[in-house]
């Protein structure tokens, strides 16, 4: 209950932050830009639109997640608002959980808005012919040729995967923010995100006989400790649905469970550190 009160306040605070709103506007603008790729062949336009749209949702979502995640707790400590909160009947774990939940809701709303804009643009693109019949006010032809693309559920799944990936990054940033300064946390969280995004590379390096043994251990440690953000890169089968792929929904479910488990571990570590933190 207390965590939920803090989460609600965190969400209210975040949506009033100018920087996050700027990212959201830039993201919506970027998605709209993809409508201008008319110099390409129609099929290519759709492929580029899907790739570009999902990429933009992730790109701007990444900024939102990291900027928000690194400052959620330190901002309260620096501005001393934490004194009046932790001196109230609020347990420290409730505070950390509340701040994270508020961040997660903010991220969800932002990703949902960006994703919705992307899906609208996608539907407009695949219905170019139907839209052209509107110019001659032929509504019958418009409804007759309008298609609800069968790719929409997959794209929604893709947006959900982007959210899960960024939620995991948010948990990393919140965990680090219980002991690191905002600047240090920015670099730490970014490093973890990069290392976790090239998990297949670190795994290969840890097994390569050409790598010195100490570095192999280091690569293995990075590979096993750092969450694998690459798990959520499902763009390829979504952009090229004609290419046969493994059972995508099952894969996505497994990735979600993996992400939630990692998020819980990161929050537990963050709470344990914060329990002894002097504010």
């Amino acid at each position: 209950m207390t965590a939920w009160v803090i989460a609600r306040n965190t969400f209210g605070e975040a949506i009033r932050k100018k920087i996050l709103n700027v990212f959201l506007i830039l993201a919506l603008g970027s998605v709209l830009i993809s409508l201008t790729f008319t110099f390409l062949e129609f099929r290519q336009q759709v492929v580029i639109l899907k790739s570009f749209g999902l990429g933009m949702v992730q790109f701007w979502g990444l900024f939102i997640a990291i900027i928000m995640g690194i400052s959620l707790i330190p901002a309260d400590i620096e501005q001393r608002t934490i004194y009046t909160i932790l001196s109230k009947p609020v347990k420290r774990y409730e505070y950390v959980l509340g701040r994270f939940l508020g961040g997660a809701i903010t991220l969800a709303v932002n990703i949902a808005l960006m994703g919705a804009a992307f899906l609208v643009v996608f539907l407009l693109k695949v219905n170019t012919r139907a839209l052209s019949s509107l110019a001659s006010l032929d509504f019958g032809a418009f409804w007759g040729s309008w298609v609800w693309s069968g790719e929409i559920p997959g794209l929604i799944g893709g947006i959900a995967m982007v959210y899960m990936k960024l939620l995991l990054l948010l948990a990393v940033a919140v965990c680090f923010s219980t002991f690191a300064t905002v600047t240090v946390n920015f670099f730490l969280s970014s490093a973890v995100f990069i290392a976790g995004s090239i998990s297949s590379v670190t795994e290969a390096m840890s097994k390569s006989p050409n790598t010195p043994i100490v570095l192999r251990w280091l690569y293995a440690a990075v590979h096993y400790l750092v969450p694998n953000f690459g798990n959520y890169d499902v763009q390829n089968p979504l952009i090229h649905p004609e290419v046969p792929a493994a059972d995508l929904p099952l894969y996505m479910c497994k990735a979600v469970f993996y992400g939630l488990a990692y998020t819980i571990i990161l929050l537990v570590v963050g709470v344990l550190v914060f329990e002894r933190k002097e504010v």
Partner: protein
Amino acid sequence: MENAIEIRDLTKSFHSVLTGEDVIAVDHLTLDIHRGEIFGFLGPNGAGKTTTIKMLLGLIFPTSGTATILGYPPGDIEVKRRISYLPESPYFYEHLSGYEVLDFYATLFGIPAAERKKKVDRLLDLVGLSDNKHKRLRHYSKGMLQRIGLAQALINDPDLLFLDEPTSGLDPIAHLDIRDMILRLRDEGRTVFLSSHQLSDVEMVCDRVSILDRGKLMRVGSLSEMLAGKSVEIRAERVRDDVFEKIKAYSTDAFTVDGAIRVRVEQTYVNDTVQMIMQTGGEITAVIPGKRTLEDIFIETVREGTVS
């Protein structure tokens, strides 16, 4: 007398990365604060006052020693329901309005919605912010923020309030209002732990005070006892010069005004001095017990500490 706060040998040291040494912020502090009193917690900047308050609230942890607040250890969730804290120069979520911020704090205490609304409105009225309750805090003046700070400190009807510089940055009227409010809190049976540099305020409202300097407790006691003077001023006329010279030898201050003498002597010399003047034909016009101010005591205590 039952104690609201019991502090035993409380010590806090911080490790300085630059010098590699431990800096002692609070040094074996032992102190009792009685229930229902206004306790003044004084000390120059860096004396360890805020560090002590933060330890008592469970925001930071002591290096050694113990403390109990209303019988509970610092930071205990049960005690947090019964205490409140107004930090020095308080900061609140600026995206909220005065009403919303009080509602937020009230929700943290689990106060039901209907009761919350009444309480928030009453407190806004009490601190004179009813007309500005829908204004965002980022548009509040320093004085208004201080008032909202005091209102949030009253949201749970606390038994014990920690007030850190509650009158800082306030205009004279607001200053007076808050001083009256602190006195009213004591009349309602609450305990107030008041840390302040405004010695005149402390002198007017506190029952007991302590003076902390460089982490050490230098003085503690009842304000009336502390302020009671040890010297007495004697005014007399027609005092012979040789008698005046004798008195000057042991007085702390002696001078003449229009032929009359004014001397300040320790309490133990009062009878002898008066007798001597009267037996030699002098006339006593006034015997005035000396009274010191809290400022005198504060400066004297801190200077003594610096010398020692």
